[in-house]
């Protein structure tokens, strides 16, 4: 069949347009860019507890190979990343806080959210030391669950703190001064923020609402005032805990995954510590507790691809086996490292929801 010049011309034009389009599409698609060896850089802020996960070479490789993404993630408190002008003015492409409530908070601060998705979960726990935990058991504030993990009556502990009880009064000898539980700054960081919600729930005897009496807010404020200086990031708080030992950091609030991650990061270190350290870290599970979800907030369209990449089974498996994060549904992964298996609760049944966003705002405003 003869093809007229005109048809040929149009055909060529069409082909070249299609080819250009495909090439352009390819360049804009991070996946294709990834295969081409090109990467899209995304900058944003993450809660300190995910710093090691994001820096994990396996995660870096997976994000680059599978999605052509390279992250420039700075540590910031989950609450401050959703509210502080100094942070939002840096035009982050994504935010990765540690609580679903923060998504509403970011929206209320005027952040244009393209998409958000819970990637990981970890329950809020209390970290302590074996000698302190044994004291709490003797004092009736905790129960041993096996040899290596504990269930904590957080309600009773908060009551003792409110009554200005000294360590010796609650069964813990050898520590000087008043009993205290330390968390991060609830106006900047999520683990402190979640303790506010949990404490309000426990003190009020149910999920706190805007109808919860003001006296509960006052009690929560007292508990936080007794903490003194509160770090701005959960990651830093946990490092301080490990470095400080029972004399400096007897009881702190954190995420379950933090100890798991630390143990798995250097198993030899953990074995040495188990054999020789004068005090060993232990997890106390508050009953009930709250779950910290880690929603990725895509501010920029390109960050949508980051959500996809983080939800792949490959990355989720790394999150559990190397960093101790439970999946989006809060269930522990299949494989369990023997070093941590007996220290964590496979199922956490006593969970209470966080108060809603407006109630939380009212509570933390008192603590600013």
């Amino acid at each position, binding site marked *: 069949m003869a093809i007229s010049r005109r048809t040929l011309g149009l055909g060529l034009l069409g082909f070249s347009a299609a080819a250009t389009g495909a090439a352009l599409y390819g360049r804009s698609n991070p996946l294709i860019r990834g295969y081409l060896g090109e990467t899209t850089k995304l900058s944003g*802020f993450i809660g300190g507890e995910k*710093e090691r996960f994001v820096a994990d070479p396996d995660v870096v490789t997976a994000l680059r190979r599978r999605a052509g993404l390279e992250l420039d993630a*700075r*540590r*910031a408190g989950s609450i401050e990343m959703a509210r502080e002008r*100094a*942070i939002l003015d*840096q035009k982050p492409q994504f935010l990765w806080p540690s609580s679903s409530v923060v998504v509403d908070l970011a929206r209320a601060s005027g952040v244009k959210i393209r998409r958000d998705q819970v990637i990981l979960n970890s329950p809020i726990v209390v970290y302590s030391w074996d000698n302190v935990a044994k004291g709490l058991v003797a004092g009736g504030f905790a129960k041993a669950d096996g040899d290596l993990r504990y269930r904590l009556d957080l309600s009773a502990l908060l009551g003792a703190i409110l009554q*200005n009880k*000294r360590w010796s009064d609650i069964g813990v000898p050898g*520590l*000087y*001064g*008043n009993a*205290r539980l*330390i968390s991060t700054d609830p106006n900047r960081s999520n683990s402190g923020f979640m303790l506010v919600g949990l404490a309000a729930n426990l003190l009020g005897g149910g999920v706190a609402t805007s109808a919860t009496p003001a006296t509960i807010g006052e009690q929560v404020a007292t508990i936080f*005032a*007794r*903490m*003194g*200086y*509160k*770090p*701005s990031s959960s990651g*830093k708080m946990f*490092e*301080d805990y*490990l*470095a*400080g*030992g*029972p*004399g*400096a*950091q007897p009881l702190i609030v954190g995420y379950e995954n933090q100890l798991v991650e630390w143990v798995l990061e*250097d198993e030899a*270190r*953990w074995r*040495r*510590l188990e054999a020789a*350290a*004068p*005090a060993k*870290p232990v997890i106390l599970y508050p009953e009930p507790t709250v779950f910290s979800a880690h929603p990725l907030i895509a501010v920029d369209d390109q960050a949508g691809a980051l959500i996809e990449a983080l939800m792949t089974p490959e990355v989720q498996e790394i999150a559990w086996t190397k960093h101790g994060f439970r999946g989006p549904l809060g269930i522990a992964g299949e494989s369990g490292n023997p070093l941590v298996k007996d220290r964590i609760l496979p199922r956490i049944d006593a969970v209470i929801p966080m108060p809603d966003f407006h109630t939380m705002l009212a509570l933390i405003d008192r603590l600013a």
Partner: protein
Amino acid sequence: MIGGGAAGTPMVLSRFAVRLALALAGALGLSLGIAACSPSGPEIAIAAGSENKVLEPLVQEFCKSRGAKCGFNYQGSLDIGFGLKSATAPLQADVVWPAASIWIDLFDENRKVKHLASVSQSPVILGVRKSKAEALGWTRDEVTTADIVAAVEKGDLKFLMSSATQSNSGAGAYLAMLTTAVGKGDVLTSGDLSSPDVRQKARALLAGVERSSGSSGWLGDLFLDQDKRGVRYDAMWNYEAVLKETNDALVARRSEPLWLVYPKDGVAVSDGPIGYLDRGRGKDVESFVLDLQKFLASAEIRKRIAATGRRLPLGAGDNAPPVADWNFDPSRPITAVRPPEPKVIWDALNLYQEALRLPSLSALCLDVSGSMEGEGIRQLHEAASFLFTPQTTRALLVQWSAEDRIIAIPFSSVPGKAEQGTGVPADQDRLKAWGLQLRAGGGTDMYSCARSALQAMAADLGTGRFLPAIVIMTDGQSQGSPESFLRDWRQDGHRVPVFGITFGDADRSQLERLASETGGRIFDGRSGLVEAFRAVRGYN
């Protein structure tokens, strides 16, 4: 100091060079140390607390292995904090290494510091001459802060302590004292700060300060240097690790060591964190810092860090063995005082500067010789304007108090008429106006100025209620003889340290002579007189 200008091409080259070096090293089976010859690595500026000086060789080893040029700028932790906060004079550094991470948390509002991780810990404790500790009964029993207050109040104990507003160890010791002075076993609150009883106790404790400084490392050196000259200070608040260093040196020269007192009701702990300051120099510099952290966390290097008396992170290895003879034990569990809320910290530091510390008695000898004409006198005016404007000094926590005595003396070949005042606003205005009309002319004799400073201080020195200092700012070679001043100084009872600020073509050796003899220090004013005058304010 190394600026940020090294970014760009040299960085690309450096990466290539490092890769090449690594490849060659790998191929030849050479160690990293030999691959170090590459001269074109990155330039890295490090802002570090003075107590980290002893660890600098470790860092330099790493820098050398990367062909990097690492420049240390030793600053107080609060200075590093001010630099992080400042929009006008931002910190010129790629690595920050203050004594404690709390200062980064308080000042780094734009979250420019990444990957902050503790290298080692050291509590701020009290080292007391062993014979003194025995006399006080402290070698037998555990000691509380109340015991220390009692000893100071009875006149049985004096100590060296760095400035609470300029140095982390001073701030830590001061906040721990305040907290334990409150005595309720709780964190410090704003209410506590206004309690007359707490203020009284804090003032009583701070009355024990014999010498102060803007740097804990320098304080340790001062202790040793003065010991050599026969000046036996009773005690010093400092890091456990600095006290160990001091003792190692004292024992080596068969001098009496310090007995380490760990107050059982709580001490402050430094966590010595190292972090990357992101000022846009790119991934290469960031990964350099991450690799440096890994290097410092390697088993071999940690062993060497532990050997300095620093406490390693949990499970990271063995701390230095205890020394029973000095009560040194970096594995001993300690009770840490909980730091208060940031606002309370800030209020407490201002309270220290304005009301609780021993008042300072400062004589400022200001060179107005002919060579100061032009840039010199301009900078001197600027410095006077800074020093005598309460808002500007307060912003950097070096404000004068109403109790402080300031004697400003201009000098050329002879001392001029002194202008005196305190920190009250009217005096400050007058001193500023006086400073701004200074003119240059004539020769240079700093010794005669120092002598008249000593005379002008005599009455207040007699009361024993002040921390004195003579500060000499000069830009030239002085005529006259140091002996003329030192004779008077010895007659006075060796009480006043002399600090020098060099400017222009100043003869550093002349100032050095006075400073070393009297237990003072030299500050380099050539990169800015304002900064030098600010720094010297931390020393009395």
